[in-house]
């Protein structure tokens, strides 16, 4: 049990300095990407639509670990050499972008057509209507599935240990290798992930309540 407590500090530090910022940065960038891709997917242009569809298809159709390895171990072959951190953030962002794009697209499409028409009627352009009228309503619908994406991402950051990012799981691996207490340390890592995700679930519930205020049930 001494090992549990003595390793807890370094592992929490790994979470605070690795796992959490990695997840937050990737999710933020990924959401921006996702919004752009969702725009492509709902655009009337066939080419734009095709580009968006291709991106989503490639990202969802290949393993995240492979994407991570292509960027970190593969790209140097074509002269692009990235450090572990930027590689991880790029890979996770692109991945989140692919999954969240479909969530956002579906959320936008779930807003009744009459809302677009009312936006146009009061004189708004397509972009203005999207920003002021459609997205605020789509946000409400997309919180549960986007929370799923975020929670998955938090756990997926453990894959970054394989490209040498010092996040929480890499700390666990190092301590385990040194002490040979694999069961204890990996369960400890699992526990920390679980606690982080519990906090996130609670935050999701609060956010849903907030966004639900203005809608009849």
């Amino acid at each position, binding site marked *: 049990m001494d090992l549990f407590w003595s390793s807890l500090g370094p592992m929490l530090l790994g979470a605070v300095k690795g796992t959490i910022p990695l997840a937050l940065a990737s999710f933020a960038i990924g959401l921006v990407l996702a919004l752009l891709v969702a725009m492509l997917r709902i655009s009337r242009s066939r080419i734009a639509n095709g580009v968006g569809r291709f991106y989503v298809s490639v990202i969802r159709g290949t393993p995240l670990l492979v994407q991570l390895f292509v960027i970190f171990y593969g790209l140097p072959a074509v002269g692009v050499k990235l450090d572990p951190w930027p590689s991880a953030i790029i890979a996770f962002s692109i991945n989140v972008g692919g999954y969240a794009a479909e969530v956002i697209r579906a959320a936008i499409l779930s807003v*009744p057509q*009459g*809302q677009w*028409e*009312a936006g*146009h*009627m*009061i*004189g*708004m*352009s397509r972009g*203005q209507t999207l920003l*002021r*009228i459609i997205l*605020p*309503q789509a946000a*409400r619908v997309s919180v549960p599935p986007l929370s799923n994406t975020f929670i998955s991402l938090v756990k997926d950051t453990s894959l970054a240990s394989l490209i040498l990012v010092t996040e929480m799981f890499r700390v666990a691996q190092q301590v385990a290798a040194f002490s040979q207490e694999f069961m204890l340390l990996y369960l400890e890592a699992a526990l920390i992930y679980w606690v982080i995700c519990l906090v996130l679930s609670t935050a999701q519930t609060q956010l849903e309540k907030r966004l639900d*205020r*203005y*809608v*009849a049930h």
Partner: protein
Amino acid sequence: MSPTEPVLQVRGLSKSFGANTVLRGIDLDVPRGKVVALIGPSGSGKTTILRSLNGLETPDAGSVTVGARGTSADGAAGAAGGPGSEGGTGVEPVLPALTLDFGAKVTPREVAALRDRSAMVFQHYNLFPHLTVLQNVIEGPVRVQKRPRAEAVAEAEKLLDRVGLLEKKDAHPFELSGGQQQRVGIVRALALKPQLLLFDEPTSALDPELVDDVLEVIKELAEEGWTMVIVTHELAFARQTADEVVFMAGGVVVERGPASQVLRNPQEERTQAFVRRLLHEI
């Protein structure tokens, strides 16, 4: 300017959705301050006309002119379609007349310009659920027309007070009854200071006991001198409110004339059948 000068002039409007032709060369004139009711069976093209006037549909051919020729900034509030009491400051800048010829290619900018001249009240209200009543009303004036917020709020409150909903200004649409929502829909349209008001079956989605409140508001607007086109199934309302009734079927105008004539003494067989059916329903 002549009081009979048309605020709306529609010529040869045609529209097909795929193989389905919904409008076959419609002509329509609405003089300033007059109310035209479009009646007819479902699928006759009434709503498509309205939506074309507000740029929500793009017709295949024909032209639409909104606003009187020669209208300019000195046109006074009357030219804004409504009575002078709306403006507060008296004289409102009025957009000049605009003609769109749908036979040629029409740009989104032109459609937007056409839209700026009219405002629409939807069958299903289409209020913005995430905004309060007041925010719904001022969104257009403040965000699109860039009018000072304080001024827009003051006008919105005045309009809400008129329809008896001032105390609901901070409520969200879901807290209102259908009739209240539709009255907010009307206020949202009025706040845009359009030259032309379009009503798309404004009471069709309402519970019967809520219909009268909404019709009462529209009647008052007619009396105040707003220029309006109303698609409706409420024949009694049309008879009392409309200056002209246009009966459509199958994408053409079957019969038109003064409300009393078309509704009491229709000449065409199809009009007779339609009016009889609707009146017997009631």
